[in-house]
Every structure is written in C-alpha cells, then in structure tokens.
C-alpha cells in the first residue's frame, strides 16, 4: 500500500553558530534549530509537520528547498542526496521541490507585476518553457489557481491576502514540481479565505499529483490536510504517525498537551473537556535540556528522562496490542484520549 518514498530525510541537523567578535569571530555555542530529524515523504501524500515556534519546523522547510545547508544529515530526493549537491545539479533538483511561503504580503516582490513574478521561474530555468510560450503558461497558471488570467500586468498590492497567496502558489507550480513545501501557507489569512486556499491546495494536489510537506502550528488545519503528521519539539520529532494515530491515539505527552490546548469551536465542550496545561516556556534551543528535551515541562518526567534520550520508536507495549502502532519518543509513552470525538 505505501507508495515509494520520493524524499528521505535522515538525521538532519542544522546548527546556527553563535559567535563573538566582529572581524575575528569565535564560536561560543550553537543554536540547535534542528537536531536529528528523519522522515519520509511518499508520492502524492501530505506530510504535516506541527510544532510551536522555535521547534525547528521552518528550518526543516528551508533546508528541504535548499535555502539552508544542513550541518549534518542527508536529504535524499529519489535516492540522491541534495544536501551534497551544488551548482547546476542543485539547480536541477530545486526545480522539483518548490516552496510556498507564509506571508503573502512579503513573499511577492512589490516592484514586479504578477506576470513577472509567476514567470520568473522560467527566467531562471529557461529550459522548462520556450520564451514565446511563457505568457500563455503564466495565464494558464493564474487560471489554475482561480485568478483572472487578465491580471498579469497588475502589481501585488492590488490584491488581497488570499489572492496574493494564490499568486505565490502559482509561482510554486510554474516548474511543475513533484514536491511543494508549504510553510504556514494559510496562517496569515482570514478565516473565510483560509478555507478557499486549503481547498485550492487539495485540488492542486490531485490535479498535479503533488506531494506536500505542510508546515503549520494550527493543528486543526494540519489534521484536515495531512495524511501523516510529525510533531516537533525543540529540534526533534517527538511523535509521528498517520493523521488518525496522532490525533486519535497520541502517546507522547507533548502531543497530548498540544492537542488538548487547541481551542475547540464548541462552547459545549468547554465544561467537560480535559485540558493539559503545561508549565513554563519552551527552553532555549541554544541550551536544550539533557535526555528528553520535553522533560522540563513534562508531568511524567522521571530521573531516567534526564539521562537517556528516548528514541523515536514504536513503544514496546504496542507490539502485542491491537491498536495502531506508531513511533513516539517517550520513555513512558502511553495512549491518552484528548481530542473529543464526535
């Protein structure tokens, strides 16, 4: 049943050095933004990556599209490690992995017309479309994302946020990529427009056979759009599984806390809903806790949590159980129902 993995990420690490001095720089530490992340993306599926700010999810996105070079680890696209590529070879791979940005107001160059913005991928990769054909292709793309093809000569500020996000998506589609990495693509949009864009993304996925890496902090949107979900905390994946496994049968305490904290648009639920309130704040990624990184906020923490890093693995007790087994990086992983089911 599972399709082939087109993208394999293995032990991805991205550290940002902290330096002192202006001309002669001395490294005094590192922000461990991503610290050993592995996952697969299969053909045609949507992998949701959720987590709070500072968990490293955006850094993962930026390394996938080549905006950042990983400190260590491999990103294999059809078996080829793109982290090691450069120059022409990297450019060729980039064609197939495109990105949609969060902020539709800053992700479009205000000095360029919509036609130039969507057509820019063809300028950079001229082999994709012959020059005479570009205008037609741009107009086609506008049509595909639900905008009037006659808008090619307009500037971004003449559009609303939702329309701009459609332009950003059209730009991402221009090179007919296999994978689209979407970093919080709807979180800057109004509720009524958010649904339009989510529906558009789903339609395009079917139409163009796309695979998505969908990064968001909104757990509801992620559930809606994702086939599989990875939950990140302080640079690591703490739990991963299918949408139903994560939302219906979470086993990691952080996932449980995260899910229980999401406000549910149903006032009836507020009396009998169980909420896990976490104490304190996320520790600094420059100096993460030893062992399990979540232990400083975890109600289950034991001495072992400070000493042994819990591996991201299917808990042993799952082996015999009938329920859906999925990996969870907790020494005391145990299922707990936190999302009210209908």
């Amino acid at each position: 049943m599972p399709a082939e993995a087109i993208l394999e990420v293995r032990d991805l690490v991205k550290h940002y050095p902290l330096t002192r001095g202006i001309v002669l720089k001395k490294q005094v530490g590192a922000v461990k933004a991503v610290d050993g992340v592995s996952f697969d993306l299969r053909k045609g599926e949507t992998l949701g990556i959720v987590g709070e700010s500072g968990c490293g999810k955006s850094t993962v996105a930026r390394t996938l599209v080549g905006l950042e070079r990983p400190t260590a680890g491999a990103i294999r696209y059809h078996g080829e490690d793109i982290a090691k590529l450069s120059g022409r070879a990297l450019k060729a791979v980039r064609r197939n992995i495109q990105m949609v940005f969060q902020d539709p107001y800053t992700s479009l160059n205000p000095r360029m017309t919509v036609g130039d913005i969507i057509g820019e991928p063809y300028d950079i990769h001229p082999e994709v479309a012959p020059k005479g054909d570009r205008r037609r292709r741009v107009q086609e793309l506008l049509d595909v994302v639900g905008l009037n093809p006659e808008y090619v000569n307009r500037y971004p500020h003449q559009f609303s946020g939702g329309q701009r996000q459609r332009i950003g998506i059209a730009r991402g589609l221009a090179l007919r990529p296999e994978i689209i990495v979407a970093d919080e693509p709807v979180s800057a949009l109004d509720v009524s427009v958010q649904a339009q864009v989510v529906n558009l993304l789903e339609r395009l996925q079917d139409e163009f056979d796309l695979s998505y890496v969908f990064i968001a902090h909104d757990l509801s949107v992620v559930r809606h759009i994702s086939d599989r979900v990875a939950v990140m905390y302080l640079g690591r994946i703490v739990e991963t599984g299918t949408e139903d496994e994560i939302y219906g049968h979470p086993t990691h305490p952080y996932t449980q806390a995260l899910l229980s904290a999401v406000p549910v648009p149903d006032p009836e639920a507020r009396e009998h809903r169980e909420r896990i309130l976490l104490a304190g704040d996320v520790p600094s990624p420059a100096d993460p806790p030893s062992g399990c990184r979540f232990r400083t906020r975890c109600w289950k923490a034991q001495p072992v949590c400070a000493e042994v890093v819990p591996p991201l693995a299917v808990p042993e007790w799952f082996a015999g159980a009938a329920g859906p087994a999925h990996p969870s990086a907790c020494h005391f992983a145990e299922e707990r129902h936190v999302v009210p089911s209908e």
Partner: protein
Amino acid sequence: MATATTPEPAPDPGTPAPALLDVRDLYVEFRTRDGLAQAVNGVSYRVDAGETLAVLGESGSGKSVTAQAIMGILDSPPGFVTGGEVLFRGRDLLKATPEERRKVRGARMAMIFQDALSSLNPVLSVGAQLGEMYEVHQGMKRKDARAKAVELMDRVKIPAARSRVGDYPHQFSGGMRQRIMIAMALALEPDLIIADEPTTALDVTVQAQVMDLLADLQREYDMGLILITHDLGVVADVADRIAVMYAGRIVETAPIHDLYKSPAHPYTRGLLDSIPRLDQKGQELYAIKGLPPSLTAIPPGCPFHPRCPRARDVCTTDRPPLYDVAPGRSSACHFWEETVRDEEPPHAR
C-alpha cells in the same frame, strides 16, 4: 500629570443602573488620500461587570477600530468618530475632555494588545513600567511602587517575580511578556479590560495558559472583558456573549451557546463551517465565496449579499436592521428565520 486619583462622578441616581459600557450607534471613518473608508458603521454593544463579550471579525471588520474609539486612542487623523455614544457607567466618553478621558483610561478601563513586545518600552525594566502606573496615577513613592510591581507580577503568575522585576522586556518570553501586559492593565484594578487579539501571537500551549489567567483574573476582580478576536475556538472557550462584525457592522449578537448551535446570520454560519476541526477529518471545507468588501465601497443593501448563499433581490437594496431573534439575540439578516433553522437553501457542498 495627575498626582491623585479623582473619584468618578456618581451616575445620575434617577436612572436605572447603567451598563458598565454601552456603545450606541458608533460611527468611525478614516479619511485617507484615496477616499473615505467607513470602518465602523453604527455599532452598538454593551458589557456588564463580570461579563465577557467576544467581538469576532476578520481583518477590516472594524473590531479593533471600535475598541480604539472606545478607549479614545484612535489615530486622528486619519480616523474620526463621526457619530454615536460611548457610555461608560452612564457617562458619554465622547463628550468628555481629553484630560478626563486620560484619567478614565488606565484607571477605569485598560487595553491589552496583541504584540506585547512593541507595547512595552524596551529601555525600561518591567518593574519600572509597572511601578510607573502607581507613581503616575496614585502618586506612590518609587519604592512602594516597585513593591506593588512585584505583587502584580506574582498575581499574573510570573515565576520568581522578585528577582525578575528589574529585567527588561526582551528578556522575557512571548507568553511572559503578555502576562506583563496583563499585569499592567490590571494595575489600577480597572472595571473594564479590552483585550485585542491577546493570544494570537502566542503558541497554542502558552495561549491556553494566558487565556486561563485572563479568565481567572476577570472572575476575581469582577471586571467586564471585551475580547476581540478572529478565532472562533478561543471565543468558544471563554466568552459569555458574542458579537460578530462584518464590514464595520454587527451582523449577529447572541449568547455563546446559541451562536454555535444555531447561527442566525449566514456569515456566522459560513465562518463556522469553514474552519477545519481538530476533532474530525473533514471532506472539502465549506468556503465563503469571494472576498470581504473594501471599506471605501461597501455594497449597498446587506454588505454580505455578494457572498451570501441566501441572498435575494431585497438583500441588494434594503439594509437589514438588527432583528430580534430571541431575548438577547439579534441578527442583521432579512432571512434570519430560515438561517436559524438552517433550512433551504442548504449550502451547496
């Protein structure tokens, strides 16, 4: 600078006890170089002590502008209040002198903003900023004010308040900064707090902490709370009543349970249907078609009619008044009856 608190003039004894805040038919417009933007067009709502009113709306709905007009912090120009009354304990703030308004603000009503980092002065320690409230409004000595600051920080559950009172805003995390903002708003024990998207910039787990704190403090002090937000989830968790705004108007007001169970305005229904739910893996989301209107060219008739699945001819010409749906419930839809019952035309899904 005021050196002592001035007692509020007692409300007229002859009238029945007025609401804590009663906004009546408020109009605000922005005069920009490209024309007149009608940001608020006849908004009325009231809040009583101990009550939480949620004002729900998308960007450009006028929800924040209304709050700024109530607080008297509207940037003018380009913004102008062109009509209506803002009755605070029966007294019209719009007719008050700037000096009187300034005294009401902070002491009797306070505001919490979304972005705590830019709302706090980066070069003053949080202790100094909290203490300043007492020094300016109550003429307290610096040392006493500092002690009060620590007390406040304790009350909003900032750990190790005593040792952190000298820290600067950037040394706190987002959630902690928002607690400091709340402490600042609480300092003079106001009767009314307006919170404008107080948790939007925060992470989910921190959001829950801050919302809980706000709700606890409100109960403790028996304050009125106006919670301005775009998030239907946050509203459902804390509000007693809700007012939904669209294009500078209130389109529906209702007790919280009624609104979620049977919305009486197609816009509200559309919003509820268009949000993905945590507790279900939905099919395609319902999407309200089109875009919110430009405030310089609000459609005639019902401003929602171009996007409304129930719109008929009358909607394009007659502006619907706020119809009484039930006691404490109203809807600005000509067809609220069929909307409440959710009958024909059901959404084309």
